[in-house]
C-alpha cells in the first residue's frame, strides 16, 4: 500500500512535470501577436461603443454583412457574411442582402450547447439595438431618419418605456431565414458603407438577453477570434475561434507594384486565415512605455509611433532610421482619413455677446479669412506635429471617396501679409493706438478660442494661434475648458472659435461635408454654418451614387467652404506604424483598425529576435 502510494506520487509528480513543461512549450509554438493600444478600451458590445480601440477588437470578434478588401486602395467594399454586394434598388432607397447559410456564432453558454447559425433576424435585431434608448448607443445617429419605420419604433419604445424587439419595422423586411431588405426614407448611396462599419454587425439576441448589463464583457460573434481574457484597461487576449470557417486572402484588387501588397501576398496567399493563434493587446496610455516596450521587443507592432519619438524613428525624408532598419523593422507611413480644424461660430452672437467672426457679410467673411491666413500652419506641422502632417486643402480627408489630391487652395496658407491687407481693407485697424486692431466701428477686437484643457497638443495649438494672431495685431484669448464642456459649448453655440477634429466613420467625402450642412446645426455642424447654396448641393449629392458628377458637386462644396471660411482648416496627420520582421502580411487599412485575421507570425524568427 505504501509502495503503491509512493509510486502513485512519483507518477503524479512526473505527469505534473510533463504538464508544466509542456504548457510553456505549447505556448512557445503558438503564433502570438503582441500589440499595444494608445488608449484604454471601453467594452465589446458593438452597438454600445464608438471608440476605435473597442471597435478595433470587435472587428475580430464579429462579422458584418460587408467589409473592405484588405489590399485595395482606394478602399473597396466586399461581402463578408452577405453573399454579394446588393445593387441599390428603387433609386437608392432599397438594399436587399442574402446572408450566406452555414455561418455560426462562436460557442457560448447562452446557446446551451447548440450550434447557433447566423440569420437575417440577427441583423434586424442589431440595427434595432442602435435605436434602443436603453443602450445609449453613440452611433444611434447612423440610423436616425434613415430606415422606414425605425424612428417610429424608437419613439414608441422611448415613450412607452417598453422595447418590443418582436414588433415589425416596415423598412427592415426579413424575407426568409437568410434574406433581409432595408427600405430607406431617402436615397442614400453611402448606406453600404454604414453597413460595413465594424460595429454594425449582427448579434445573437439570446446572448444579449443572457448577459443583460454585462454585454460589454461577453462579445459573441461569428468572427475569426474569440475573447479569451479581459483585464479591463490592462490586457485583452483574443484566441482563434476554433469553429470559424476561415478565409482566403483576396488578391483581385492588389497592386503588384506595391511592396506591402507583394509581401502580404507572398506570406498569405493560399493559406487558410486566420493564422494567429492568439493576440495579446495591452492598453498603454503613455507614450514612453509604449515606445520602449516595442524597442524592447515586448510587442511585435507599434501602431502610431508617438510624435515625441518620431526623430528617433524616421528621418526627415520619411525613411526609417538605420539603427531600426538594421533590425529588420519596417515602417508603414499612413496619411489617415482624418482632419483637424478650428470652427468659427458663424452666428451673430456667441457666449451671450456680439460675435465679430459670425455672419455672412463681406466684412465678417473677410475677418474669418484673415484669421485663417494669419495662422502659422507651417509652425504647427514643424513644431507640434514634428513634420508628421500635411496641411488640409479641403474639408475632406485623404483616403476617402471624393478626396481630390490635386485640389489646392491658398485660402488656408500661412500668409500674414495677405491677412493684414485683408484686415486693413475691411477696416479692422488700430483705432485707439494700443497696437492692436479694432473692429470697423472702433470697438476692441478680441477673438476667443476654446480648447480641451486636458490635451497638451490642443494647448500647444491654442498658444500657436495666439502668437500667430499677435503677429498681425489681433488679440486672441485662449481658454482651456473640460472636454465635456467643450463638446457642449460647440453644440449650443457657446464659443467663438474652438479646436476640433474628425476621423472618417466611412470612406466617403459626405461623412466630412455633412459637418457643414445647415440642418445638422446642433449636432455635427459646430460652426452652425447655414448657406442655402451649400445645403442644396449637399442634398443633391446625396441622391447621386459615386460618380464624376458627384465628385464635381463635392468640389463645388469645397469651394464654398473655402470662400465663406466657417473653419480654419488644420492638417491631415501622418502616422508611422512599425513592425518587426517576423510579422507577416501587414498592411495598414485606412478604415479597419486591427485586421488581425490577415497577420501571421514567424515563430522561429520571433523567438530568435526576442532572445537577442
Amino acid at each position: 500500500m505504501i509502495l503503491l502510494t509512493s509510486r502513485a506520487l512519483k507518477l503524479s509528480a512526473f505527469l505534473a512535470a510533463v504538464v508544466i513543461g509542456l504548457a510553456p512549450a505549447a505556448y512557445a509554438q503558438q503564433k502570438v501577436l503582441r500589440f499595444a493600444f494608445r488608449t484604454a478600451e471601453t467594452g465589446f458590445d458593438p452597438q454600445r461603443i464608438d471608440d476605435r480601440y473597442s471597435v478595433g477588437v470587435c472587428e475580430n470578434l464579429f462579422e458584418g454583412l460587408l467589409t473592405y478588401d484588405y489590399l485595395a486602395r482606394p478602399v473597396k467594399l466586399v461581402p463578408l457574411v452577405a453573399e454579394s454586394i446588393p445593387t441599390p434598388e428603387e433609386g437608392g432607397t432599397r438594399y436587399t442582402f442574402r446572408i450566406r447559410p452555414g455561418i455560426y456564432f462562436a460557442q457560448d453558454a447562452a446557446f446551451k450547447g447548440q450550434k447557433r447559425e447566423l440569420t437575417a433576424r440577427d441583423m434586424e435585431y442589431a440595427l434595432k439595438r442602435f435605436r434602443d434608448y436603453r443602450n445609449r448607443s453613440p452611433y444611434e445617429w447612423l440610423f436616425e431618419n434613415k430606415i422606414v419605420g425605425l424612428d417610429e419604433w424608437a419613439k414608441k419604445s422611448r415613450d412607452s418605456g417598453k422595447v418590443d424587439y418582436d414588433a415589425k419595422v416596415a423598412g427592415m423586411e426579413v424575407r426568409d431565414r437568410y434574406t433581409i431588405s432595408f427600405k430607406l426614407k431617402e436615397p442614400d448611396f453611402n448606406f453600404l458603407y454604414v453597413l460595413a462599419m465594424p460595429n454594425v454587425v449582427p448579434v445573437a439576441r439570446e446572448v444579449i438577453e443572457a448577459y443583460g448589463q454585462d454585454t460589454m464583457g461577453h462579445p459573441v460573434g461569428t468572427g475569426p477570434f474569440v475573447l479569451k481574457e479581459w483585464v479591463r484597461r490592462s490586457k485583452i487576449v483574443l484566441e482563434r475561434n476554433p469553429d470559424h470557417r476561415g478565409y482566403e486572402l483576396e488578391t483581385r484588387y492588389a497592386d503588384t507594384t506595391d511592396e506591402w501588397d507583394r509581401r502580404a501576398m507572398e506570406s498569405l496567399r493560399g493559406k487558410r486565415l486566420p493564422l494567429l493563434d492568439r493576440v495579446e493587446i495591452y492598453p498603454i496610455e503613455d507614450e514612453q512605455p509604449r515606445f520602449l516596450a516595442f524597442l524592447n521587443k515586448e510587442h511585435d507592432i507599434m501602431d502610431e509611433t508617438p510624435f515625441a519619438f518620431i526623430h528617433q524613428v524616421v528621418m526627415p525624408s520619411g525613411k526609417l532610421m538605420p539603427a531600426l532598419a538594421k533590425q529588420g523593422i519596417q515602417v508603414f507611413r499612413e496619411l489617415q482619413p482624418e482632419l483637424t480644424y478650428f470652427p468659427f461660430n458663424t452666428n451673430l452672437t456667441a457666449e451671450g455677446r456680439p460675435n465679430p467672426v459670425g455672419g455672412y457679410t463681406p466684412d465678417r467673411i473677410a475677418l474669418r479669412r484673415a484669421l485663417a491666413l494669419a495662422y502659422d500652419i507651417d509652425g504647427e506641422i514643424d513644431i507640434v506635429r514634428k513634420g508628421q502632417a500635411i496641411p488640409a486643402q479641403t474639408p475632406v480627408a485623404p483616403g476617402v471617396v471624393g478626396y481630390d489630391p490635386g485640389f489646392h487652395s491658398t485660402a488656408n496658407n500661412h500668409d500674414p501679409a495677405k491677412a493684414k491687407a485683408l484686415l486693413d481693407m475691411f477696416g479692422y485697424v488700430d483705432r485707439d493706438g494700443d497696437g492692436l486692431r479694432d473692429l470697423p466701428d472702433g470697438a476692441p477686437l478680441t477673438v476667443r478660442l476654446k480648447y480641451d484643457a486636458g490635451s497638451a497638443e490642443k494647448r500647444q495649438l491654442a498658444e500657436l494661434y495666439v502668437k500667430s494672431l499677435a503677429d498681425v495685431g489681433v488679440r486672441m484669448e485662449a481658454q482651456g475648458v473640460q472636454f465635456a464642456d467643450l463638446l457642449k459649448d460647440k453644440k449650443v453655440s457657446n464659443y467663438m472659435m474652438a479646436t476640433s477634429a474628425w476621423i472618417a466613420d466611412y470612406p466617403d467625402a459626405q461623412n466630412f461635408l455633412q459637418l457643414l450642412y445647415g440642418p445638422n446645426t446642433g449636432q455635427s455642424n459646430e460652426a452652425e454654418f447655414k448657406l442655402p447654396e451649400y445645403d442644396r448641393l449637399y442634398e443633391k449629392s446625396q441622391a447621386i451614387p459615386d460618380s464624376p458628377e458627384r465628385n464635381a458637386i463635392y468640389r463645388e462644396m469645397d469651394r464654398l467652404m473655402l470662400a465663406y471660411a466657417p473653419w480654419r482648416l488644420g492638417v491631415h496627420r501622418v502616422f508611422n506604424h512599425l513592425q518587426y520582421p517576423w510579422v507577416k502580411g501587414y498592411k495598414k487599412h485606412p478604415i479597419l483598425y486591427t485586421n488581425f485575421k490577415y497577420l501571421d507570425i514567424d515563430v522561429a524568427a520571433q523567438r530568435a529576435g526576442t532572445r537577442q
Partner: protein
Amino acid sequence: MTAYVVRRLWQMIPTIAGVILLIFFLFNWIGGDPAQVLAGKISNPEQIANIRKQLGVDQPVWYQLWVFVQQVFTFDFGRSWSTNEEVSRILLTRVGPTLTIMIPVLIIETCLAVLFAIMVAYVRGTITDRAIMIVCTVAMSISFLVYIIVFQWLFGFILGWFPVQGWSESFWKNLFTYAPLPIMLAVFVGLAPQLRLYRSFFLDEINQDYVRTARAKGVPEKKVMLKHVLRNAMIPILTNIGISLPGVFVGSFLLEVFFSIPGLGREIITAVNRSDFPVIKAVTVYLAVLTMIINLLVDVLYKFVDPRVSFK
C-alpha cells in the same frame, strides 16, 4: 478607550456629510455634463436628454443628493457610466495591483528612512550629515516624472534588468517581475523627504533632557538612540505614516500609467476624464472613510507607543 473610539466614530458622521456635499456640488458645478461625453460624435438634444434621464442627472439636485447618500450607506454605487462595469467590481479588482506596489513601497521606504535618519541624526553636523542633506534636497527638487522617465529608460530598456511595463494575473509574477522597478522608483523618490523629516524628529528628541540624563547616567549611546530616542520619535513618525496610509490605497497615478499597472490611481484619472461620476463618488467616499479609520487607528496606537498618551 471604548468611549473614546465611539466618540471618534460619531465624529466621522459630520465629516462624511461634508465629503458628500463637497463631492456632489463640485461634480455638479464643474464636472462637465457626462451626457455630452457619452453621446458620441453626433447627437441631438433628444438623445442628450435620454442619456441624462438614464443617468439620473435630469432629476432635481436634492433628489440626486439623496440617491448619493443612499449609495454611501448601502455601498452600492451602481455601474460605471462609461463602461457599464459595476463600481464595486472596479474597486475590488483595481485595489489589488495598487496594494502590490504601494505596501512594499511603504514598508521599505519607512524602514530605510528611519534607519538612515537615525544614523544621520547620530552624526549630525558632520560632513556626512551635510552631504546627505544636500543630496536629499537635490533629489527632492527633481520632478517625479523625470525619475520615472529616466528609471524606465535606464533600468527597463538600456540595462534590461526589469520589463519596461506590464502586469499579469499572477501575484508572484507581478511582485517579482513587474513591481520591482516601480517599487524601487517610488522608494527612491520618497526616501529623501522622509529622511529629512525623520531626521528632524530624531534631532528634536536627541536634544531633550531625558537623553542628556541617560547619557549622564552612562547609558551606552546605542541604547540611548535605539531605546529612548527611537521610541519617542515614533509618535510623529506614526502620525506621518498615518497621513500617508490612505495614499497607499489609491496608488500613484503616474506609476500606474507609465508601468501599465491596472490600479486605482489610473482608474480615478480615467473616471475624471470621462466624467464617470459613480466611480469618482465611490473612490472619494472610500478614501474619506479610510482616512478617518486610519487616523483613529493611529491615535489608538499612540497609547501603546507612548504610555503618557491617554484617551480623553
